[in-house]
């Protein structure tokens, strides 16, 4: 088990390094960041000063390894635009994104798990198809379209929810639904598959024979076992939602990490972009690693695969 975890850890670190290197080189593919920083009317002299000041006049590999060296020592750099240490800015905004991610995940689980259970009770029935349909619509709809549609009805037409911002809990309702709805199909189908398998097992038949109530059978005996793979999936999806919040945070003017990433790309704030990608990829990798470890613990066959 330890050897497996060590192997996965090395693999995870290599993924993080690769993601960083690719991001770093891709940002330079879109042109000279000094032009964005200096603005349209910057003179050649201004641009040369900016390049020298930020070190953009050095070869890209040198810049990358300088950045990596500092990052390993905990120094993620200084934002060109916000004029703040990158780490300070990221950790100021991270709680907002975490709150959004948590609310979205909660919404997804509250919707998808009962749907999965309902679908498993009557497999291939109309109820099953409806449950599947509700979940799949979430994945099929572009999140920006869904977000704007909600905004139109709930804010503009009915005036029951605020349009944008993060002032109250009500501000998180629409963004959480827009973000969480997208992952419901995966959770719902995994719940359904797990429940179908568990409901046919011997201990459930025994429980049923003992006269256990239907509710207790489904939610106390069956769901508890069927939900284990869902938990690991949810962990991974939480990482996805932190990264995937870019569109939702931009639409709902939520001052979180996703919005910061979008703005940093727009203004070529390289240190900020690099750090956000690193943090988000580390989150994702960490959650994937956690899920792998949990699966390996549950199923010894994975450890030797």
């Amino acid at each position, binding site marked *: 088990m330890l050897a497996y975890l060590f192997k996965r850890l090395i693999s995870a670190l290599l993924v993080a390094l690769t993601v960083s290197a690719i991001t770093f080189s891709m940002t330079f*593919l*879109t*042109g*000279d*960041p000094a*032009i*964005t920083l*200096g*603005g*349209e*009317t*910057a*003179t*050649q*002299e*201004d641009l040369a*000063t*900016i390049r020298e*000041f930020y070190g953009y006049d050095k070869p890209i590999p040198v810049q990358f390894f300088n950045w990596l060296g500092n990052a390993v020592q905990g120094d993620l750099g*200084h*934002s060109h*635009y*916000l*004029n*703040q*240490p990158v780490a300070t*800015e990221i950790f100021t905004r991270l709680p907002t994104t975490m709150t959004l991610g948590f609310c979205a995940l909660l919404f997804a689980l509250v919707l998808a798990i009962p749907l999965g259970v309902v679908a498993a009770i009557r497999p291939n029935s109309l109820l099953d198809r409806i449950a599947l349909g509700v979940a799949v619509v979430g994945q099929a709809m572009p999140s*920006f*379209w869904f977000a*704007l*549609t909600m*905004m*139109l009805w709930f*804010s*503009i*037409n009915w*005036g029951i929810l*605020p*349009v*944008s*911002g993060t002032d109250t809990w009500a501000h998180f309702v629409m963004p959480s639904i827009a973000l969480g709805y997208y992952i419901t199909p995966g959770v719902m189908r995994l719940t359904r598959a797990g429940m179908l398998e568990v409901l046919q097992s011997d201990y459930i038949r025994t429980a049923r024979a003992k006269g256990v109530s239907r509710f207790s059978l489904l939610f106390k005996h069956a769901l508890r076992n069927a939900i284990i793979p869902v938990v690991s999936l949810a962990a991974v999806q939480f990482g996805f939602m932190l990264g995937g919040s870019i569109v939702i945070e*931009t*639409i*709902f*003017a939520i*001052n979180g990490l996703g*919005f*910061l990433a*979008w*703005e940093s790309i727009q203004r*070529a704030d390289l240190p900020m972009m690099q750090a956000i990608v690193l943090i988000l990829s580390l989150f994702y990798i960490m959650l994937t690693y956690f899920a792998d470890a949990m699966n390996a613990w549950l199923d010894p066959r994975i450890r030797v695969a």
Partner: protein
Amino acid sequence: MKSVKTSVLFALFAMTALPAIADKSDDTLNWATDKEVAVVDPYFSVTRELIVMGQMGWDGLVLYNNETREFDPLLATSWKWDGNTAVEFKLREGVVFHDGSAFTADDVIYTVDFLVNEANGVPAKSIYNWMKKATKIDDLTVRIELNAPTATAFNYLSNEIMIMPEGHYDKASEGADGKKDFTTVTPNGTGPYKVSESKPGDFVKWEINDAYFEGGAKGTPQIGNVNFRTIAESNTQLAELLTGGLDWAWDVPQEQAIRLDESGKVTVTNEKTMRISYIAFDIDGSSNTDAFTNKLVRQAMAHAINREAIATELVGPASVVIHSACHPDQFGCTEDVTQYEYDPQKAKALLAEAGYPDGFEFDFYGYRQREFSEAVIGDLAAVGIRANLNWMQYRALLAEVHAGKTPINHMTWGSGSIPDVAAITSHFFKGGPDDPANDPLTAAAIERGDTSVDPAEREVAYAEALGIISEELYWLPMFTYTKYYAFSNDLNFVPTPDEIPRFYSASWK
């Protein structure tokens, strides 16, 4: 992606009725743009938002009047040139900063000294590097000396050079690198509004400066509070506007602006801006496409493109076709140059004369408003010129342009909102990487205009340069850009072509 989203919201608006907007009861004007404001300082935040807020919190010595096209007194009450490299200002008496300290010549000197001291690292050098020094004549008289004659000096004094109180940046705390971090200083100006609260990257709240002086070019502010926040998505801005969360927004996409205007729930207006569209040719053939070295081909291009249709149908009602390498509102700009009317038959004839009876194929580069470039390509195709569109990020395209790799680049230029041809013609046709022609005759004429402070002399010099540029077709000037504004029906607001909204002049109806 953006146009898809825009179309989606347009379709959604079409399906439903629009409700009434909120009122003016809290005496707070809420406005938003898509940019974050990190630092409330006009020198250490190089953004349009800080140019706007700079005029709210601070004052310059003069203020450009968009109607008279003259400079009005602001912190200075009068001025007098001494040759073309020095100007003496009489300063306004009785002006106080937000912290209560009195404004004097020492504050002007401090501001100039701070800017020109390279060690302070004020980023946008071009706005101040024309100044040499400022000297005190008396408490209310100051003399500013220039490094060289600078045609745009007063434009910078109006829009960019905001006067800070003496010792302002001395209060800066030290950053992690041990250097002074000038962005940490609390904003303090003489302007009609003062900062009441701000959160970097989120919002800036301004309250009226009750002690603001009377008789200046900005008048007396009317609205009690003016709050800024960042909303990146234009659809969200409009939703906030319709639900009363915002009172003012700009850069509204055209199709949404038309729909909003029809609803009557907000006031929508299309106004000209200082930005123009132009097509630059590869005059010297450095891109390995020889066609545009031939003037007949450039003329054929000019006759082939229906600029009028693009301006009126795609850009907005306030857009106009331009024939000169400048914005018609800029000082020194003249439309009395060679003009090329839309005439596809003439374009075909010119192509045949140039040796391209069947047209030719080339790479067309653009970066802004793809639909405008596609309309150009459609017009060119109609006369047999086949353009392959290369769509790039501005910063990537500019590098290609500077390397001379683009046969044609369809670009735009905003002149930094400066209403003077020195901010555009001088930038592009006096040599350097942006100059497509490097024509010594053009450059010499521009230099004469740039180094004179006599308006008549300048106009003559620029007219000569602009005449050559149009006759030789180094550029094909296209049209002026416009901007759609949407604001509360309760608001009296007048947009200006320099894209600096005067919130201090706005009032409630």
